[in-house]
């Protein structure tokens, strides 16, 4: 028996090997190497001097770092609740029996297949002044007087709105599918029973649908928080982090430090700071999930 098991394990290992090799070489090893980098002055080409914990001391005091982290946090706060609400709403719409059911499903999912660059440039074209879609429509319906323009991309708060809208539109598809499949798994009998008892649509949504969606919603929320903390590309393309770095997320700062200032050691330190933050968040979520699971 034992030999059989070992053989099975060996076989499994053989099949896993190609992945493990790549994973080890390009994920695990660089992560270890990254830790080493934080202790050195390390340029784009070479290891320079050992500087101990200097980078860690620097990162804790660096205003730019905390500002960038704050911007990433703003992005998380802006996109996570809206994403969950939007995803549930779209799932509800697409779940209703109607002729357009299939159309809705593809409509809501299609943006997800775009690459980040395509989605962001579409956002740019839609929101740019003079020729952009939004301003043109506003001009057309006379909400915006002749000669006036709304500068969506260069005003800080408007830029955040644009970034949030583009991100929601572009990434909601995947969460929408998760919510839709969860909705479809809710047994019809429960709804029937509720209707017989005279429950209103409102009550059905709040007391049945939403609680049944809770587990998947928790997962989506967690994934969304982690993914949002790692935001970079759409902001980089849409605002470049501006105006005056006021929308620059932490990943952009890491990128600029590493590849524009050639300071890989410090960039690695910031990456690990972000890593720790995400780790704490994940642990918190895990702990809360477990507690809830035990209570149910």
């Amino acid at each position, binding site marked *: 028996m034992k030999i059989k098991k070992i053989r099975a394990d060996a076989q499994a290992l053989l099949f896993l090997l190609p992945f493990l090799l790549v994973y080890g070489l390009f994920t695990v*090893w660089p992560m270890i190497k990254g830790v080493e980098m934080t202790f050195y002055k390390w340029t784009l080409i070479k290891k320079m001097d050992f500087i101990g914990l200097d980078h860690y001391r620097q990162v804790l005091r660096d205003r730019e770092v905390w500002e960038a982290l704050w911007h990433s946090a703003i992005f998380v706060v802006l996109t996570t609740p809206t994403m969950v609400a939007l995803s549930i709403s779209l799932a509800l719409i697409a779940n209703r029996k109607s002729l357009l059911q299939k159309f809705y499903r593809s409509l809501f999912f299609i943006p997800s297949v775009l690459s980040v660059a395509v989605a962001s440039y579409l956002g740019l074209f839609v929101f740019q002044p003079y020729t952009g879609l939004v301003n043109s429509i506003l001009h057309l319906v006379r909400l915006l007087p002749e000669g006036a*323009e709304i500068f969506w991309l260069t005003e800080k708060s408007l830029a955040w709105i644009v970034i949030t809208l583009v991100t929601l539109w572009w990434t909601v598809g995947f969460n929408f599918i998760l919510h839709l499949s969860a909705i479809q798994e809710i047994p019809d009998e429960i709804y029937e029973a509720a209707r017989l008892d005279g429950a209103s649509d409102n009550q059905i949504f709040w007391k049945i649908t939403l609680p049944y969606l809770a587990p998947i919603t928790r997962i989506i929320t967690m994934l969304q928080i982690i993914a949002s903390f790692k935001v970079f590309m759409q902001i980089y393309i849409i605002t470049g982090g501006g105006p005056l770095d006021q929308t620059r997320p932490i990943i952009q700062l890491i990128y600029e430090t590493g590849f524009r200032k050639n300071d890989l050691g410090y960039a690695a330190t910031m990456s690990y700071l972000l890593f720790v933050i995400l780790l704490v968040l994940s642990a918190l979520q895990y702990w809360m999930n477990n507690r809830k699971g035990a209570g149910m």
Partner: protein
Amino acid sequence: MTVAALLMAFSLALSACGGGSGGESSSGSADGGKVSLSFWTLFDGGDGANMQALVDEFNKTHPDIEVKNTKLVWAEYYTKLITAVGNGNGPDIGISHTSRLPDLINQGVVTDLDAVAETAGVDWSSFNQNLLDATVVDGKHYAVPIDTHPFIMYYNVKLLKEAGLLGEDGKPVMEQSAEGFVDFLQTLKEKLPAKVTPFALSNTNDDPYRLWWSLYSQLGGNDLISDDLTTAQIDTDKGVEAADYIQKLFKAGYIKKNDPDFYKNFQSGTAAIMMTGVWATGTWESTKDLEFGAMPIPKIFDQEATWGDSHTIILPTTQKDDEAKREAAITFANWVADNGQVWAKAGHIPSKPSVLEKPEFKEMPYRSDYASVASTVKFNKPSVKTAQIRDNVSFKILNEVWADKMTPAAAMENMQKGVQKTLDE
């Protein structure tokens, strides 16, 4: 996305560690008499085609040397060059902007050329002194400049005529002074339909910064850092005056606010004048129905000066230091500079005054109208932080001034702090 950036960081770190073993730099060497050279360039579009034409012509006329041109994407060029040279896989010949040179020298990416230039018989005095000086660091030549691409002014001939501002000689009628230029723009604004932009200019980053740099230098400002390159030293009064002048151009509505595409604005004939680098000349020429002229930017303040940079040819550090290759490489570099008339097709000003006298150059329109600018280009001091100061400090802060969210005085104060911080890092 994010993951990609991190992966890149990691894989770069990896290749940096593993690089020591991979000793072969580029193919072929001096055996069999023919020297084969790898050449990395960052040019695309018209520039890319012109450089390829030069390489082909050189290979044809030099049977004992073969240059192989590899075109890299501009945005990642320097990162790739630095990492490749760092792990011993760099090219034999490379391109660098003059402004990038000090950083590359500091990182040990480029070699000095004095010895090999002497062997190959390169005559440094045949270059424009202003361009050449900017490539000399600590008394050593590090690069062969092949052009300069300064900030100049273009004008739409039809629109200027319509506004009555085109002289008999086909040149704009404008008094070269601070008031003169504003009057010129005011007339354009009054005389031309409201849809026409008097002055097409980007609202952010490069071009308005270049205008500011030009005016700051015209006032006598001398870069943002001290001569010993260690401290921020902005001539505040001059910086404020230049920024204030430009901010007023934005506020007065001469420049279209947040123009999403100022190139297209001029290209489609809806802007009377525009300022940008000379590389636009080739683009305007190939635009149908665009009647335009080119000239140095006006002397708005005390002395003529403009922003500019140069493309230079460099010999990156290689593992073998093959003398035959280096000699062939600098021969190529010098030959490219000698044949600047081909390179000038895109609009650049050749680096050797002798090229300006060639009939092929003189036959091309527009270029001669602004070739004199080469001597008034105000280059940066040779600081390794030049690009960082520009990208992370000047651009960002001045953008706020153009958007009227910061006063010129506050901007200079912030820049002084930002420059110092960048220098200290």
